[in-house]
């Protein structure tokens, strides 16, 4: 848990990875992150666009790399994780999903995670609630890779087989005996499809099993974790984040640090919602990691002119301190 001495709402717990003194931490300039900023607008547009119902007949052909459950009646796109699970049940390679995610990943990295994912929006909003803030152990990030390999791929492959792509025997829900990620874990599915289903459908309420209660309990735990730890679900439990992790290191849209201009003030480390730039020894911020969702809060937060920029290929699309924060905002960390 973050100790006292500064406002835990303005300084993310990941800043504690920097081994400076508390006084040094408190002198870090804060990024100007208005709640109703550009990213929030993009997330709201994404929420509406991905859940606008009428696009579904066409949109559900597409696997957009966001966690938006296709069991929700309003959902307009197919969930990549659910689709990969379905292909694993068939024991077939999901070329279509790999191609889609690969193409988007190489072009824009995990931009969709930071700017369009509805579940990311839920996390960003819940973290605004005043509460003690926790720092997740670094090893927790590995859990999402285990979930991807075991519950999204291995278990459906082991328990599937015999299903057909089309016709009466085609893959349908619960065909793994409810042992895959969607059936056992996915809190996005519980929130977007399970809970509304329970509210509006009496039969679903009557047929609730121990599995339903388990998923509701897990959803409550994950929502609670989101309040105390920033983007905790993305970092620890999201198998889509794990699948897209490689693209953070190899994409046309990427972050670039000018080492000559960087003063190692660690403002970017403080601003990062996924602690992607934090390093244990605190000597310098990391350039790019698998956790980076390209939210560009680090670029916005960097006080040095043109020390950090986002590039699309060789072209700079956003650079640090191009729009200096209002003077009143600086030093907003209160002792």
């Amino acid at each position, binding site marked *: 848990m973050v100790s006292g001495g500064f406002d835990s709402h303005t300084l993310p717990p990941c800043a504690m990875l920097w081994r400076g003194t508390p006084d040094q931490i408190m002198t870090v300039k804060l990024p100007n992150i208005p709640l109703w900023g550009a990213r929030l607008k993009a997330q709201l547009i994404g929420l509406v666009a991905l859940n606008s119902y009428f696009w579904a007949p066409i949109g*559900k*052909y*597409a*696997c957009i790399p966001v966690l938006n459950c*296709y*069991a*929700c*009646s309003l*959902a307009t*796109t*197919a*969930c990549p994780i*659910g*689709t990969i699970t*379905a*292909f694993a049940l068939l024991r077939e390679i*999901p*070329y*279509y*999903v*790999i*191609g*889609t995610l*690969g*193409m988007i*990943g*190489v*072009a824009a990295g995990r931009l969709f995670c930071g700017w369009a994912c509805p579940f990311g929006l839920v996390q960003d909003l819940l973290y605004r609630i005043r509460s003690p803030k926790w720092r997740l152990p670094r090893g927790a990030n590995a859990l999402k890779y285990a979930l991807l390999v075991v519950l999204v791929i291995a278990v459906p492959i082991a328990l599937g087989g015999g299903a057909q*792509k*089309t016709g009466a025997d*085609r*893959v*349908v*829900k619960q065909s793994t005996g409810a042992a895959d990620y969607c059936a056992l874990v996915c809190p996005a599915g519980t929130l977007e*499809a399970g809970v509304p*289903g329970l509210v509006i*459908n009496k039969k*679903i309420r009557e047929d609730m099993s121990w599995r339903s209660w388990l998923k509701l309990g897990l959803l409550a735990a994950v929502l609670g974790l989101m309040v105390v730890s920033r983007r905790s679900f993305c970092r620890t439990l999201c198998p889509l984040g794990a699948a897209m992790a490689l693209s953070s290191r*190899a*994409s*046309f849209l990427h972050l670039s640090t000018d080492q000559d201009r960087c003063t190692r003030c660690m403002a970017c480390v403080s601003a990062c919602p996924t602690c992607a730039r934090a390093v244990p020894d605190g000597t310098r911020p990391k350039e790019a990691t698998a956790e980076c969702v390209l939210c560009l809060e680090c670029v916005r937060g960097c006080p040095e002119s043109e020390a950090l920029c986002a590039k699309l*290929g060789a072209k700079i699309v956003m650079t640090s301190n191009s729009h200096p924060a209002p003077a009143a905002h600086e030093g907003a960390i209160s002792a």
Partner: protein
Amino acid sequence: MRKLRWVILIALLAVAIGVLLYGIYQGDAQFVLENAKAFCFT
């Protein structure tokens, strides 16, 4: 080194597009749509 990075990225993008097109050729897009509809409970 920078040129090599662009070459790798362009090659990765080309491979991804190729895999996507092969998936469409295999009929995966139709399966994705049908699967998504099957999961939707309304």
